[in-house]
């Protein structure tokens, strides 16, 4: 194996489009384990974790821009990010993992339970994908096409994630269960962003769930059902049924699909309640 450390984004882009069997590495917290387990065996690693172009959290042109090489710890320590994203980032691994793992790695690794994914879907996150010849934008909810599969091409680098500043208004919350470790039970997570009136009537809402379908899922029908209505117990029952129709959890050694369904509904209700607080 060869290990290359480009100094600029342009160099990195040239490397991945000219070399065969090259793989990007950021923090390497996912990749190094996959390589050690022989799940993948790239001939060349291109390390983008030090590229200035991919770093930092800043406001520009009506968007909040999060560089792909921003570490999870930097997300946790940021004072300007929406609450659900900070909560999601905080729940990742351990301090040691958060110090090296990056936002771009969490997204591009495309695990259905990645903890920044549902928050970013709830916040309308837009990914900027750059190749040596083009630059395009993809909504995070359209980025995943299957477990561990994304629309990111081999010659593309995720450079930043954009969040429209409108999402800094409103409130958000993240809930998860089953921290990743040797003895995980399940890893369902839920994120909700919303704006509401004083009597709990919902004006705008976006919601997403992770780990209960092959890809992180935006709950569009649930959003529709909640919009313009005041949250009370009867509506929550109705919404629980809709959640059950939208998700497709599996049964495995860790948990049955029935258990995952119940957990999802409970997490959803908790997150909704937290996000609504403050509008009362």
């Amino acid at each position, binding site marked *: *194996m060869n*290990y290359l450390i480009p100094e600029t984004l342009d160099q990195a882009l040239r490397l991945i489009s000219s070399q065969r069997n090259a793989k990007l590495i950021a923090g390497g917290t996912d990749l190094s384990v996959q390589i050690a387990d022989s799940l993948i065996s790239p001939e060349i690693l291109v390390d983008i974790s030090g590229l200035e172009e991919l770093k930092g959290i800043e406001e520009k042109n009506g968007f909040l821009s999060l560089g792909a090489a921003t570490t999870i710890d930097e997300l946790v320590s940021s004072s300007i990010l929406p609450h659900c994203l900070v909560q999601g980032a905080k729940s990742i691994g351990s301090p040691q993992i958060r*110090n090296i793992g990056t936002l771009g790695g969490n997204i591009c690794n495309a695990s259905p339970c990645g903890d920044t994914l549902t928050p970013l879907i709830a916040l309308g996150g837009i990914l900027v994908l750059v190749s040596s010849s083009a630059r395009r934008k993809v909504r995070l909810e359209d980025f995943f096409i299957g477990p561990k599969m994304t629309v990111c091409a081999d010659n593309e680098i995720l450079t930043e994630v954009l969040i429209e500043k409108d999402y800094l208004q409103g409130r958000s919350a993240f809930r998860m269960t089953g921290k990743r470790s040797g003895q995980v039970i399940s890893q369902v997570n839920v994120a909700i962003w919303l704006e509401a009136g004083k009597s709990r009537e919902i004006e705008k809402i976006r919601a997403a769930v992770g780990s209960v379908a092959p890809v992180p899922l935006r709950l569009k029908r649930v959003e529709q059902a909640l919009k313009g209505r005041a949250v009370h117990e009867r509506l929550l029952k109705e919404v629980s049924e809709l959640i059950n129709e939208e998700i497709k959890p599996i049964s495995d050694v860790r948990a049955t699909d029935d258990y995952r369904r119940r957990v999802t509904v409970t997490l959803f209700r908790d997150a909704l309640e937290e996000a609504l607080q403050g509008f009362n």
Partner: protein
Amino acid sequence: MHLEFICNGKKVSVDVPADMRALDLIRDVMGLTGTKEGCARGECGACTIIVNGKAVNSCLMYAVKLKGKEVFTIEGLSEESGKLHPLQEAFLEEGAVQCGFCTPGMIMSAKALLDRNPRPNEEEIEEAISGNICRCTGYAKIVKAVTRAGLGNNHG
């Protein structure tokens, strides 16, 4: 690949294979065997070192990534004279060590915490060592030891 970095205050200049882990460089090439290998997949914290002020798992990190960095291992804590670091003293005084396998990693996580937050509370200590597993002590004495080392920091 050739790399240079600072380890425990001293300049290191070595050639390493591209797929070598930082853990193997430190233990096998540099002979600093205080850093331990437990799980080799980021879950136990026995391999914790400090890179540019941050605690990291050296089992998940390619050695190449140390290039140009400032690195601390457990060997860098005590002084040349043999005088122990306040954290090491506190671990001894509180009896926070049983088999000792987790101790170097635990102390490195605690050091990263104290360096940025000299007087941490219990909750902050528990969070800082949440990536370090101890199979012997039950953690209470470890938390006490870190608290004690913190209380010795009068500049907090």
